[in-house]
């Protein structure tokens, strides 16, 4: 097991270097620089532009800039945003909890609804129920998120007034940001009603963000269940006279879950990288929106640092999924140990 972890972890360093090189190069290949973007129509005189480029060190040879960047990274320094002048690491951690909170809630929504949908469709294969579930899943999967989210808002928030339009908390509450997770912070604060407000603000974004993973999970569960339901051990369990419910939930589901867990893990990793559309529509202060804004403004340090941090998180989550997979399915673990 240790060897397995070691092998997987050793891949992290080259990937890490690759990411730094790629973001460093890509963000500089895009025309325009942060100083011009800030000046807008007003413009900068060529002298002032040169002066500022020198001040930020952007006039030096690219190789030297890259070397310096790596050197600073090695010391844990991600640099400062050209726009806000704040350390990139601080800006990242100010936003990351919001992204995690939304990603987890969206995933919980997707699993809680998607899993039973998939099981039902498999068990009632070929019935109206099956077609209904699969129809919903295909629709969900191909739904343009932007449109879907706005539709949800128009119906539930504007017409019915059940949920808030956007944001994380109603303007009437003041909650101290202790952990950055609004659900926890609102519970810790002594503002009555803040927790309820935080929950209600999470509903629509979670549904919007969770819709595609839900569809994937439902389809995955269904096909995986169908496969397992034809296995000999399931027939044996049935023959033993076990109740159909027990056969499905205990004998079939446990084995059918293995591919589903992988999918859930990978999808969570992707969600943790920030959901640009959902965050934009729901004014959710997460890292997806932050990174897009940084690209738009050519904020080199933020793009470099932010992408690197996101890549690190995805690598960590993937590692975790691999390990978890190994735990659920010993054959994988053993296979890797043999090679």
């Amino acid at each position, binding site marked *: 097991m240790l060897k397995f972890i070691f092998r997987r972890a050793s891949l992290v360093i080259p990937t890490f270097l690759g990411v730094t090189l790629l973001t460093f190069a890509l963000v500089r290949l895009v025309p*325009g620089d942060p100083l011009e973007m800030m*000046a807008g129509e007003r413009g900068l005189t060529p002298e002032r532009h040169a002066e500022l480029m020198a001040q930020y060190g952007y006039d030096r040879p690219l190789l030297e800039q890259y070397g310096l960047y790596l050197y600073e990274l090695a010391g844990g320094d991600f640099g400062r945003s050209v726009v806000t002048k704040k350390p990139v690491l601080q800006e990242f951690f100010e936003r990351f909890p919001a992204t995690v909170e939304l990603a987890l809630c969206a995933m919980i929504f997707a699993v809680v609804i998607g899993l039973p949908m998939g099981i039902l469709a498999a068990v009632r294969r070929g019935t109206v129920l099956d077609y209904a579930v699969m129809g919903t899943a295909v629709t969900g999967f191909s739904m343009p998120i932007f449109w879907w989210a706005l539709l949800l808002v128009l119906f539930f928030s504007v017409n019915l007034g059940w949920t808030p339009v956007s944001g994380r908390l109603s303007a009437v509450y003041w909650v101290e940001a202790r952990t950055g997770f609004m659900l926890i912070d609102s519970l810790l604060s002594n503002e009555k009603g803040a927790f309820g407000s935080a929950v209600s603000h999470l509903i629509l974004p979670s549904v919007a963000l969770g819709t595609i993973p839900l569809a994937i999970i439902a389809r995955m569960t269904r096909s995986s269940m169908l496969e397992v339901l034809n296995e000999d051990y399931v027939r044996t369990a049935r023959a033993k006279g076990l109740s159909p419910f027990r056969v499905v939930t205990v004998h079939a589901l446990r084995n059918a879950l293995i591919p589903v867990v992988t999918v859930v893990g990978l999808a969570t990793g992707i969600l943790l990288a920030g959901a640009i559309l959902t965050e934009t529509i729901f004014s959710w*202060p997460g890292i997806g929106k932050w990174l897009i804004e940084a690209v738009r403004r050519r904020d080199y340090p933020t793009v470099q640092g932010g992408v690197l941090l996101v890549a690190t998180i995805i690598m960590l989550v993937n590692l975790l999924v691999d390990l978890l997979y190994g735990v659920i399915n010993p054959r994988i673990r053993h296979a890797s140990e043999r090679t």
Partner: protein
Amino acid sequence: MHSRLFTLAAGAALTLVLATAQAQADKTLVYCSEGSPEGFYPALYTSGTTFDATSRAIYNKLVEFDRGTTQVVPALAESWDISDDGLEYTFHLRSGVKFQSNDAFTPTRDFNADDVVFTFMRQLDPENPYHGVSGGSYEYFNGMDMPNIIKSIEKVDDMTVKFTLNQPEAPMIADLAMDFASIASAEYADAMLEAGTPDAFDQNPIGTGPFQMVRYVPDERIDYVAFDDYWAGRAAIDRLVFLITIDATQRYNKLLAGECHIMPYPNPADVEAMMANPDITVMEQAGLNIGYLAMNTEHAPFDDVRVRQAVSMAIDRDAIIEAVYQGAGVKAKNPIPPTMWSYNDAVVDYEYDPEGAKALLDEAGVSDLKVTLWAMPVQRPYNPNAARMAELMQADLAEVGITAEIVTYEWGEYLERSSKGEHDMVLLGWTGDNGDPDNFLYVLLSCAAANDGPNRARWCNEEFDNLVTQAKQVSDIAERTALYEQAQVVFKEQAPWVTIAHSVVFMPMTNNVQNYLIDPFGGHVFYGVDLAE
């Protein structure tokens, strides 16, 4: 003992009840803002979004624009004298002005001359300990040419400050009403420097303004409370909340759902529905801006004035305003908007006349002309849809025998390449900074701006340049007005731009918002605004 405890508990409970009641009675104005501020010290930044959240709420300037107008009125300076040669500006400061406080700092003195000197020396003097803090670039201060204009700033006494200039600069007073000139506390700066946290000075702002910032959650919200000791009187509302909402459709939805009271920048397509909604009031006002088409006078045949005039006659601007601005635009004939002083209404505009244009082109010996027509990739306050506008112009130009190829680049590159003059014709625009005609006519059209500067026509006309340079150096308004009026005549005759339109600004709000005034500079100011019960 028991009874004492009881009394304490009862007292505490009562306080809590009162505090809760107080909290409920608070008047909270919620503004759905369009983006996050870049920071909280305005001189470091250039975006209106940042100014709304900082200089227009937290800080004051020596002089300010009277709310809703471009008129300069006294603020932290009660009065000022200008020497006859126009080189010395002496400001007499207001006494009894209090600074705000926060957890890390409580002021021990009122506002005085030290604060004024510190504010400007930070930006001017590279030796100032704060000059390099937070990146230390002061683009507005530099952009307005302050380092060359200001020779020195001296404290005469506690309540008097003298600015000495290198050359006469008539727009100086208007310049000092701009956001970069927001006055900060020198005492707070010293305290933060001593504590080893100069960054905190820029991130946790302390000003003399009507609202005090209490918390900022990046990309989510900014909370302010009314500053009780505000020198001009406490704000009518108790709390001000900026809920940061990037998407314009969602800002509208939030307004409909009652989650905010005011929103900026509605989608042009939504305005009609908003106006029809009895629960929403939509205010509108012509903006202090201009959208134009600049012809590169260094590229033949646009060096020929007849060709430029022909283009001005070939383009049907009424159709453009109808199709692109959807009614939210006023046809422009001068480079400055009609609300600005010295606007010359006597200037005769070019009428839409394709036949006349053809005749002029023939006269200039131009035929089969092929040009590039640049269209901005982004929506700007002065031009809601440049791509559509370029298509209409392309069709109009084809009518008179000019083949225009539409070119566009990503925004940053667009600005850079057009300032270097790679275009034949470019669509762009401008929003005023200080209400002074100099800010349009000199900044955008002088010879100094023609060499890789904001003068996209790269047009350098001696007569025009003399007029606008001279108007910078005299301080008499009547004299300046005459010079600018003449400059507009020269501009129109020489036609370096096709002046397209001044756009109209819309501000939708709920019906209970009272006394809101649209800021001609495109800012959003909440002092003076009230909420009906």
